[in-house]
């Protein structure tokens, strides 16, 4: 059960992750802003509450696996990993630079703890399902999580994997869809409609949950429910706000694939720090 103290801690972690994302992106001069900001709450929940992991021993065999399928939002993962102690926070500023372990899209072999290499969309769920099946064959108790975007559901591989996971009743697998409704060319429902997403997954034999993906308490509750489902894999459709935390970029698909300028970053960081003060006072 999530206590008020823990919830406040997670919200503050999410806020810190958001600040780091902005700092990373402005230092890199390229990258994606909206997705990482929208998923900061979920990644804070994963790295500081949900995952059974050891930042000092990323290859620990019994660890829970978190697969990031939509590799372009990796700044949120790097930031969460750095705050969790996988590597020094300063290293975040090397994002996308020559020789950095923090590649523009995540590469498993370069940075311990990433689990997979991703960027080309649609192939994370299959890998997560493969791990889940292998783990079940060996009676392993760890869980496999797969973070995905909504836009990548245009890719056929996602549905091939969804069909496979449903058919094999991979209940140790939980997929999390960042339902922020944007993709590069515009709103998902204009580019290639995904709805009814819930009905689609249900038809593929998944247990489907939905929540506000920027509400950490609600998300953690869904994760707990998923653990109690033994007949099916679970998918959590997490409704998030792209660009969450910075009013002027929230909901704007044009922030999908660009970083803030140094001037914008300054403004954004001060807005985030105000948010931090709000979180602290709210929980007092």
């Amino acid at each position, binding site marked *: 059960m999530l206590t008020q103290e823990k919830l406040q801690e997670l919200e503050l972690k999410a806020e810190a992750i958001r600040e780091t994302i902005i700092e990373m992106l402005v230092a890199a001069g390229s990258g994606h802003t909206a997705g990482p900001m929208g998923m900061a709450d979920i990644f804070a929940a994963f790295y500081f509450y949900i995952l059974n992991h050891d930042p000092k021993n990323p290859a620990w065999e019994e660890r829970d696996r978190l697969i990031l399928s939509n590799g372009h939002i990796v700044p949120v993962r790097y930031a969460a990993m750095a705050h969790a102690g996988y590597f020094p926070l300063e290293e975040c500023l090397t994002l996308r630079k020559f020789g950095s372990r923090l590649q523009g899209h995540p*590469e*498993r*072999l370069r940075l311990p703890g990433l*689990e*997979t*290499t*991703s*960027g*080309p969309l*649609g*192939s994370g*769920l*299959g*890998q*997560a*399902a*493969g*791990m*889940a*099946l*292998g*783990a079940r*064959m*060996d009676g392993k108790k760890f869980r496999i999580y797969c973070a995905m975007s909504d836009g990548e559901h245009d890719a*056929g*591989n996602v549905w*091939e*994997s969804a*069909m*496979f996971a449903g058919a094999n009743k991979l209940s140790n697998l939980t997929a999390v869809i960042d339902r922020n409704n944007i993709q590069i060319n515009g709103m998902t429902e204009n580019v290639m409609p995904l709805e009814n997403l819930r009905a689609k997954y249900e038809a593929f034999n998944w247990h489907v949950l939905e929540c506000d993906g920027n509400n950490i308490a609600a998300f953690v509750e869904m994760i707990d429910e998923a653990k109690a489902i033994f007949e099916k894999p679970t998918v959590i459709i997490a409704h998030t706000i792209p660009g969450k935390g910075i009013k002027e970029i929230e909901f704007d698909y044009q922030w999908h694939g660009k970083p803030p300028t140094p001037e914008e970053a300054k403004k954004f960081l001060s807005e985030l720090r105000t948010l931090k003060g709000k979180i602290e006072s709210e929980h007092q």
Partner: protein
Amino acid sequence: MINPEAKLSEKVFDQPEMAPTRDGFGKALLELGDKDSRVVVLCADLAESTRVLPFKEKYPERYIEIGVAEQNLATIAAGLANYGKIPFITSYATFSPGRNNEQIRTTISLNNVPVKIAGSHAGLSVGPDGATHQALEDIALMRVQPNMIVLSPCDVEEARKATLAAATHDSPVYIRLAREKTPQMTTADTPFEIGKAVGLWESPHRVQVAVFATGPLAYQALMAAKELEYEVPTVVYNLHTIKPLDREAIISAAQEAGAVVTVEEHQIAGGMGSAVAELLALECPVPVEFVGVHDLFGQSGKPEELLEHYGLNAAHIKEAIRKASARAVRS
């Protein structure tokens, strides 16, 4: 004469036994099932024709059905290998590594996880199925991916050995297999080591042409060499490993002969011959004649009709050897 170290079948020139290379793959999987519990087999709805059915029957708990979904075939296997299994994935080569090439690139090669990709029905000799099912570009697709090992066995016994060797290798491996029965040249005693070419034939006279062949056409190359025994002295190598190439064997044979012929059931562009030519351009630039498919798709027909039409049988290899000999750089 036949290289005695190759320990070829005594019947190699006298009605050798016939079997498809895919059979050797299936046989090896059964052996691996006993040997290593990490071995799992994934199949895209082609269990019988890719010869994984016996494995499925003996080890049902380690047989994973994917259905007609080759992209998923690659990604599920990548996850299994990432976790600690040794997955073999099977389909026709046009679909895997054809259709799922990007998934192989990102989730297997770039991830560097030990998935073993068996592409069956490669080459023109698929026959009546026609161009859609005749993979002529799979070697090219696989050899340009870093970390990937590329194997192309010459007969059923070598396919068995290649499969066993692939299972114990740490890297991702591509194994090219054929549908049709072809002569069994090698024996259990024939040496097999990934990356080590096998000398099949060596003229006792001063060699004028070095022939490098891969896959079942190695038999046609051997026949051509024998038929030209008293006309053009040759050395014939079976390159069962296209990546990594046996640099030493290729360079020294090319140097000695002064001309080269490459033989493969694949597009000339990007195939084994290209790999050999890249090496020779750098280390030992000698004339090369390429026996392979000249930028064309296949079509329906009997395997022997197709090999004749596309210029891949022993008669065409002999022609190429004569041409190469005429172009040879003599020191």
